[in-house]
């Protein structure tokens, strides 16, 4: 990598179920203004703009054709990116690559979703292989019901453990001004929520949110000029699996989650992730994903995730906090969701997360995103170079 890069500004909208008060471009612009304000920059300082969303959720397939006013790309280079659940992370990585290449000093990354304008499950089902399995697709719910079922069968986990993590997520969301669902949940509330397909209950799934996020990314030299608290993007990886046509949700050890996290740890000399990383913002469209995936990220031993839930290891005040923001189960404006992981991790590294700042001092943060059901993006953010 030619240049080291840092995040020098972050922004996001107040995420909601519906935003009929703004159109798509105006929504993006809210996040862009917030990130520029945070960086104390103006659009004049931006050399390139990268943006993304899951276009089939709004039914618009070239948003960048008419979003230039909202994202500030007029007369500037850039591109639009769509990679499923990972969209916001891939957009971020593209901004990192732009700055790391040495061709651009300051790059703006913007991601959004306006789910109140389409049918997300229909959109999601339409990403399945059209000839082989689209006809039987059940969106993210079916996929994560399988993850939950498999995890219960394999590890002896009980439904209570999913509820514990869901309550943990809600505690974070209630302290996060930007989070969508703030429900003051109890274990019983989660256990009694409506069954969708066993063992998946309504409160185990992410909401359909409307929102946007933005990052300002800069090369090392510019980053040091722009801010006293740059968040260094130490590394970022994307790992693909074989075609989703043949891929299964429930084969541990064969997933892109496992491979991407192992790769980023190896490249950065991390041998004990839960000790050497101070906070993680992971992508969990369902709480069953969080429970079953701690081991995929090598945070814990196989089958140990539910014991961690019991002990509160990953609570905001715990030894290894995970998703203090409330995570994806509280807030999921899909195209922006993976960027929100990076925004939140950057705030934790800066110590600027406010009421949901974790107790453990943060020098290193880890984020993940998972998309198209068979690829993973992971990033490592640090306080010092």
């Amino acid at each position, binding site marked *: 990598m030619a240049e080291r890069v840092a995040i020098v500004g972050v922004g996001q909208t107040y995420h909601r179920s519906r935003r009929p008060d703004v159109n798509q471009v105006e929504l993006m612009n809210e996040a862009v203004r917030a990130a520029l304000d945070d960086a104390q920059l103006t659009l004049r300082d931006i050399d390139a703009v990268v943006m993304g969303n899951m276009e089939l959720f709004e*039914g618009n397939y070239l948003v960048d054709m008419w979003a230039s006013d909202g994202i500030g790309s007029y007369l500037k280079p850039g591109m639009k990116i769509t990679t499923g659940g990972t969209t916001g992370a891939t957009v971020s990585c593209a901004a990192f690559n732009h700055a790391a290449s040495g061709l651009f000093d300051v790059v703006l990354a913007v991601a959004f979703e306006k789910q109140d304008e389409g049918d997300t499950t229909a959109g999601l089902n*339409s990403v399945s292989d059209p000839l082989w399995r689209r006809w*039987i697709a059940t969106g993210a719910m*079916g996929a994560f019901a399988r993850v939950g079922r498999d995890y219960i069968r394999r590890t002896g986990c009980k439904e209570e453990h999913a509820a514990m993590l869901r309550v943990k997520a809600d505690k974070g969301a209630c302290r996060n001004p930007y989070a969508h669902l703030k429900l003051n949940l109890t274990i019983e509330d989660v256990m009694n929520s409506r069954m*969708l*397909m066993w063992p998946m209950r309504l409160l185990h799934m992410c909401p359909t949110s409307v929102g946007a996020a933005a990052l300002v990314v800069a090369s090392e030299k510019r980053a040091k000029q722009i801010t006293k608290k740059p968040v260094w993007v130490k590394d970022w990886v994307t790992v693909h699996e074989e075609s989703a046509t*043949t891929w299964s949700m429930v084969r541990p050890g064969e997933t892109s989650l496992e491979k991407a996290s192992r790769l980023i740890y190896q490249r950065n000399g991390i041998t004990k992730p839960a000790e050497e990383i101070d906070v993680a913002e992971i992508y969990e469209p369902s709480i069953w994903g969080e429970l079953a995936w701690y081991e995929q990220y090598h945070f814990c031993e196989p089958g140990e995730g539910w014991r961690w839930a019991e002990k509160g290891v990953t609570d905001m005040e715990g030894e290894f906090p995970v998703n203090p923001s409330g995570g994806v189960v509280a807030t999921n404006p899909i195209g922006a969701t993976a960027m929100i992981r990076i925004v939140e991790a950057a705030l934790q590294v800066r110590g600027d997360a406010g009421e949901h700042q974790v107790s453990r001092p943060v020098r290193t943060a880890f984020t993940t995103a998972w998309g198209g059901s068979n690829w993973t993006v992971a990033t490592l953010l640090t306080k010092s170079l």
Partner: protein
Amino acid sequence: MTEKPSEEFLVMPIPLELPFQWAAGPYLGRFFRELRDNARLLANKCPQCGRLLFPPRQVCAQCHVKVGEDWVELSDKGVVEDFTVVVEPMSDPSTGERRTLPYPTATIRLEEGVSLIHYLEETDSAKIREGLKVQAVFKPREKRKGEMRDILYFRIVEGP
């Protein structure tokens, strides 16, 4: 300061219809023809790693070699690898039609080791377990069109 009257926000409805037609190509096309004409399931075999590719295709993603015409007929029997029972109303994304509830979907591992996702005939989740032996039930010839739904569902033939 006087209170602002609440503003009316307009939303434009777009009831869009977008028809498509997808080519199956020579490999998947042959699979669907065999399914339609003879109620047989085919896979093709990678010449390098030797694994069966199901659905059949041109290139092995792991070896990056052309797979070719080494065809293997699969048994129509397998075991339930995992399953879930759908109780939430959902549409068939190809047709927009609402599916009849409840319905179980399962990953079925055929005897040759390859897997597919399909329906089970049994809709009572208490009677479904991983490891159950199942067999494909095909639609009658005149109803088969050369698509995955030519298999009606998988029927439980034996407990584990």
